[in-house]
């Protein structure tokens, strides 16, 4: 049980940093390489690392599968929500210029894309974890003709 003590202690230090790094990649996506997809994968990597070090059961207690399903949906709704907001503000679908009145600088585009990418982050992170859960919790199938062995 305690054979991975070093890995576990280091992991406990690293996992919060991995998630913060994920958020950094997300918010930096505006100015350089990065964005919601990469950030989502990094955040999911933090969760998966936790599962590898402490077991799938502990991980499912920390991040329940029911949250995962809701997270996927929330991500999509965030993305589409930006479009709905631009519709309500009288613009075209996903026309972020209407989000902020500044005309000298496309601030509306900044705001819009951060929210869109936030949706991407949610969905990508949760889908990655969902795929991991699906593979991780698969029981080996017992065939009828193998029962006797």
């Amino acid at each position, binding site marked *: 049980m305690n054979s991975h003590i070093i890995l576990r202690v280091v992991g406990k230090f690293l996992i919060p940093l991995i998630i913060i790094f994920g958020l950094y990649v997300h918010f930096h996506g505006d100015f350089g390489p990065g964005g919601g997809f990469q950030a989502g994968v990094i955040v999911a990597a933090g969760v998966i690392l936790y599962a590898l070090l402490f077991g799938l059961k502990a991980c499912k207690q920390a991040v329940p599968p029911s949250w995962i*399903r*809701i997270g*996927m*949906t929330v991500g*999509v*709704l965030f993305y*589409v929500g930006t*479009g709905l907001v631009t*519709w309500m503000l009288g*613009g*075209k*679908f*996903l*026309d*972020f*210029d209407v989000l902020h009145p500044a005309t000298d600088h496309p601030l509306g585009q900044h705001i819009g894309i951060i929210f869109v990418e936030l949706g991407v982050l949610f969905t990508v992170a949760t889908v990655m974890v969902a795929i991991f859960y699906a593979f991780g919790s698969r029981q080996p199938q017992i065939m009828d003709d193998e029962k006797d062995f």
Partner: protein
Amino acid sequence: MSTFLTGWLSAEAPVLIVVLPLVMAAFCAVMPKDKIAWIITLITTLICAVLAFDIVLQVQSAGVLSYALGGWDPPFGIEYRIDGLNAPVVLLISAIGVICTLYALRSTDAEIEPKKRAPFYAAFLVAFAGLLGMVVTGDAFNVFVFLEVSSISTYVLVAMGASRDRRALNSAYNYLILGSIGATFFVIGVGFLYMETGTLNMMDMADQLAVTADGSRVAQLAFAFIVVGLGLKLAMFPLHLWLPGAYAYAPTAITAFLAATATKAALYLLLRFVFTVFDPSLAFIGATLTWLLAVLGVVGMFVASFQAIFQTDARRVLAYSSVAQIGYILLGVGMGTTLGVSAGYVHLINHGIIKGALFLALGAFWYRYGIKRVSDFNGLGKLMPWTMSAFTIAALALIGIPGTAGFVSKFQLLTAAADNGWWWAVGAVVVTSILAVIYMGRMLEAAWLQPAPLVNGKPVASREAPWPMMVGLWVLAIASLVFGIMPAWPLELASGAAQVMLGGGL
């Protein structure tokens, strides 16, 4: 502009019709109760059908609808572009979507495990949105995205047939492999086109190709990849191997939906690329039309019709028949004349309606009596007279009896072939129609002329299909009659589409 919706709704309809089902799919995925998910799905598809009808009216009066997504004007941003070529397909997809949702209320009870039903409706809405998206978009890469959106959800839907028949998993896997190859070929083709033209907007691509590429190597390569990729998706004859399995083992509502819409959307894309992105008057396009599409279409008509005759599973009969019918459409398109292309197009619409009705009826037979094989059809005419009547109308339409929609499109096809001097094609259409008489006739003969089987010495009780199934079935059956007796509207839509494709010239 003739429209019956308010200004905002009709102006935003091209994008709303895609966004609405996508959002609602997200809601359906987390619904705890499957009936709520079903109600959401039904309302969504109904709204989409109303929007689609409005779009068709708008296109008929305004010609082209163009929507700049996010306010980025084409060709720089993504453009949703609806004209005479894709508006009827949008209407077909959304109308079939409503009918299949209505039908799914009862069929999913029998086919899908309770906790998978809400995700089933979510996947259905995603597939629905993907198909609509790939039809309305005017951006080549956006087409690929929606192609994948619809395909991946379709693989899931086919695999959900596994609770009834485990072979669905195998079929879904086959479909996944071949569908992914198709999508990959398509995106490679789009990549080459981007390399050649530097744009992803289809209209802009067409302009650039007209200037720079007089049949340049890169453009030819792109064309080859796109035709093969879409050929896989639309089940062009030698690339159709995924289709019979997927149609035979998917949940019944999904089989009807796929048969009526999925291959039709891919066919639309083929028409879009061959005729409007590329210039059909170029030598290599003309050769492809004549020697590839038309020839493979005719070979497919014969081979698939023969295969249909020797199937025992009723859904496989209709699946092979679908491959044969796609052959008719490709034959019409392969002629490259206005008459031929509009004949192919009207058959695209009519076949969607007819095949939808046939698969819905087969699903109802299975729902009531568990019938899958043609040999079990005995006496169905007496046991389920109304369902069987609708099936019979659609079967006659598939064969091409005068007074049905199938006759109208086959007659158009014959006229076009004769006009083109392709007498061999006239013969091929007539002979394969006789083959259709054989494979559909087998079912009709068993259903109407054979006595119902006896169970414990007593005749089986008559049980009609439940009303949600019956409504959709009869709407499609009546549509295939109405479009046969009064073909003016579909023919007008088809000639509008041919005008978009060939510019009224040729």
